[in-house]
């Protein structure tokens, strides 16, 4: 009782463990999230569901009354589902092989399995046409040898194929980690009680690994459902994301269809994430298992070995084909109706060197700024959540994380709608200012940076700060001299991740770039790829982007690893 009475007399800020500066900072963060995430999304929802007489489902009804939109809706669901299926067919056996068997190339599969992730699917889409298309390398060979062709890339097939190849690593990595986390005694107990082979896998092993599978599969579903660049580059427009893009860019900002589609996409993202988290509730099995080492690895023998080798080789070749294709395309002269390009040249890289510098500097500028904003905002939110008792700190956290459920195209439409009518001094709309692209990138990448900051700050024990304060350092001095240096590795990793992944964002870029001189690399790749003559330079630019992302991913991994090692030495 007396403690309660005492705390009532303490000043508010003190009770929240905040200083006035921090309160101002919290206000800025809240304003940033409110203005550039919450408000745009609300505007989108508003236009979709708010008529002159208040709430209305009229636009939704109109949407479903039009056969093209019904078809697009169905196609998007179909493509996302089939992509998950195809990705599972590739990923589940691979994960099983590397996690359950003594497979010589397990490390290689792990590493190569992550490769597709460094290249967004739209970059490889055109190259995939040239390899797998009707007159692509594979079908030309098939025709030559067996006299038939397989329509890998026809219509929706192409989108499914390209997306599955790019996103299967999400399932592979999650499932392999889940499988590796299963305690060996779980399996042995099953054997001891009479289960073996398929029955053991079906009843014990797979259910225990299911959380990893569901996490990966739902991620693939959302990514495919939201992707704009791939269908556009493959000339598939009867899907939701391309329809939204086309309506907004051709019919105009006032056309309600784009907003209805946006609303549907947000709902689908939320549902997919909700289903995943529901399916996973109370299933964090890893923490419920004790003792013994991992799952028993067995040897592959006879036919199983041949089968495994065969599957691994084919799966890796196929999943690396977009990368190979883009490399060939960037180095080839003419590549049409032939298995390989006619001749090889560095001309495309020279073209990029002449025409591209603006694209590269723009990308570095935008992504650098966006990543800096992410680290600042993410670091601030992490601090509020872990170190203060400020009311609403968890709201900031959840709102920032919620941007995961907002597809790039939806955010872009929302920003356009919200800030189109606000004019800059030179008369242009605020929404078309390149700074808006930076903000869109920052909002989209914030969840990743925030995770990184939370992880970094969690590792700085509160007593380290208390010790500094005890020795006379104020809040700011403690932050500067103790907390920030200890968090540096994590913050830097967050920065690099944001930077690298923002560099290949396309859907919001396409909508928010209005002048060529404002365009970043991802926009350049897209525009080049539109024309047959531009494919070479486009591919060269794509290779450049892949190198940037791969370097970024590697640097971020290296930083995190170095930080971890330093900590383990100290701890």
């Amino acid at each position: 009782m007396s403690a309660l009475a005492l705390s009532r007399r303490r000043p508010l800020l003190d009770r929240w463990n905040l200083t006035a500066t921090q309160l101002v900072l919290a206000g800025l963060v809240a304003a940033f999230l409110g203005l550039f995430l919450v408000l745009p999304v609300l505007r989108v929802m508003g236009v979709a569901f708010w008529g002159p007489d208040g709430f209305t489902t009229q636009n939704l009804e109109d949407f479903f009354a039009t056969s093209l939109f019904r078809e697009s809706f169905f196609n998007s669901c179909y493509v996302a589902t089939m992509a998950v299926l195809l990705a599972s067919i590739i990923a589940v056996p691979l994960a099983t092989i590397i996690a359950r068997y003594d497979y010589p190339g397990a490390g290689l599969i792990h590493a190569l399995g992550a490769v597709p992730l460094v290249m967004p699917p739209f970059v490889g889409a055109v190259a995939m046409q040239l390899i797998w298309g009707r007159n692509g390398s594979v079908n030309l060979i098939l025709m030559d040898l067996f006299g038939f062709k397989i329509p890998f890339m026809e219509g929706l097939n192409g989108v499914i194929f390209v997306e599955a190849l790019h996103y299967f690593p999400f399932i592979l990595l999650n499932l392999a980690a889940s499988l590796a986390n299963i305690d060996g005694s779980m399996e042995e107990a099953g054997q001891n009680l009479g289960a073996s082979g398929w029955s053991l896998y079906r009843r014990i092993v797979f259910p225990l690994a299911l959380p990893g599978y569901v996490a990966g599969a739902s991620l693939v579903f959302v990514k495919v459902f939201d992707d704009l660049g791939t269908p556009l580059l493959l000339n598939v427009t009867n899907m939701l994301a391309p329809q939204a893009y086309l309506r907004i860019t051709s019919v105009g900002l006032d056309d309600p269809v784009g907003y209805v589609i946006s609303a549907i996409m947000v709902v689908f993202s939320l549902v997919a994430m909700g289903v995943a988290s529901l399916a996973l509730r109370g299933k964090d099995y890893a923490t419920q298992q004790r003792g013994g080492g991992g799952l028993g690895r067995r040897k592959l023998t006879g036919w199983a070995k041949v089968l495994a080798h065969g599957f691994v080789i084919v799966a890796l070749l196929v999943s690396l084909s977009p990368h190979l294709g883009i490399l060939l395309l960037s180095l080839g002269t003419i590549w049409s109706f032939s298995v390989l390009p006619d001749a090889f040249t560095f001309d495309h890289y020279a073209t990029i060197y002449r025409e591209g510098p603006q694209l590269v500097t723009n990308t570095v500028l935008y992504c650098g700024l966006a990543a800096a904003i992410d680290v600042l905002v993410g670091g601030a939110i992490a601090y509020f959540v872990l170190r203060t008792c400020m009311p609403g700190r968890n709201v900031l956290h959840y709102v920032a994380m919620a941007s995961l459920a907002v597809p790039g195209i939806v955010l872009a439409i929302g920003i356009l709608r919200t800030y189109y009518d606000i004019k800059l001094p030179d008369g242009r709309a605020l929404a078309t200012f390149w700074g808006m692209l930076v903000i869109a990138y920052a909002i989209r990448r914030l969840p990743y940076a925030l995770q990184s900051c939370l992880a970094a700050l969690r590792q700085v024990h509160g007593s380290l700060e208390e010790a500094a304060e005890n020795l006379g350092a104020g809040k700011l001095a403690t932050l500067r001299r103790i907390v920030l240096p200890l968090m540096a590795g994590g913050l830097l990793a967050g920065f690099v991740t944001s930077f690298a992944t923002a560099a290949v964002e396309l859907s919001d870029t396409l909508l928010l770039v209005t002048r060529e001189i404002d365009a970043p690399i991802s926009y350049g790749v897209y525009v080049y790829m539109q024309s047959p003559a531009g494919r070479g330079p486009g591919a060269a630019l794509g290779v450049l982007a892949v190198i940037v992302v791969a370097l970024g991913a590697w640097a971020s991994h290296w930083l995190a690893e170095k930080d971890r090692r330093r900590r383990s030495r100290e701890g």
Partner: protein
Amino acid sequence: MSAGVEVRDVTFGYGKEAVLSNVDLTIGPGEFFAFLGPSGSGKSTLLRLIAGFGRPDSGRILVGGEDITDLPPWKRQVGMVFQSYALWPHMTVEENVAFGLEERRMPRGDIREKVAKVLDLVDLAALAARRPAQLSGGQQQRVALARTLVIEPRVLLLDEPLSNLDAKLRLEMRSEIVGLQKKLGLTTIYVTHDQEEANATADRIALLDRGRIQQIDTPMTLYDRPANRFVATFLGAANMIEGDVVELHGRTMFVGPGSSHWPLDRGAAGPAVLVIRPQALSLGGIGDVKIAGRIEDREFLGAVIRYGVGTELGRLIVDSPHRPGGVAIGIGANITLGVDPATVALIEGRASSGGR
């Protein structure tokens, strides 16, 4: 139903290092048998071989007279309770317990009946619908037991079953397991590194060290008549005196350092080690052999006071029972220790096998 187990000359190694060397033992039907030893002695490995997790490099394993060496784990009908319990978190208690019966394609009705019966046996009927994560450690232990017992195994294997429980629960579960075993008459092999646990539960113990069986006997015989230095020291405090067994004046005597002569009337002539338990030495000088000494230090342990006594044989540990109100002997006091030669154990040979 209950069957004996025979391990015949089993050798097993991961790579070069032998984890088990020439292990040979026979366990009778219905016997409660313990594998005791320090960590790394190979006791768990031996248990896992009996369950079929791993295949001996040489030697055979028989259950109920049948050679099961080449059978996979799922065909052995040998129930094992894992140290971590290994309860499947995605199944309820009931589903966990029913698993083994389902794998045996038993009709649904029979399964339900048997599961209910075994859950009753371990007092868990009320928690059948829970998941393992919602149970306490002791309850999880019971589920693990029930899951194994329900398949009516020929042998029950327990791998350090109490190591994950707190001290109080450990005693409770210990007597519960012994009670169940007697009730079911089930051949049981119990792996532990805790000598008290093994002593309290087992009919017989196999003491292992570095992959070899050091001695197999009842708990009391192991304590009173250790076969080697390792056995003597692993099972509690012991004073060890090196010397020789000789024939003197028509009697078999042990001659130690200094002037001590011990009329033993057993053992063959040659080097030997005498094992004297601390409580076998009397501070009052009672016994046929007398040793002069001086108290060097003492520890009060509650039931006994443990004295360190300097003698011509070296420093000896002496436990003297303490009764409330009794006084301890002061440090520096000169005393005469007495010991009855019948209460000491003799280990023949100097560098006796298994010594550490």
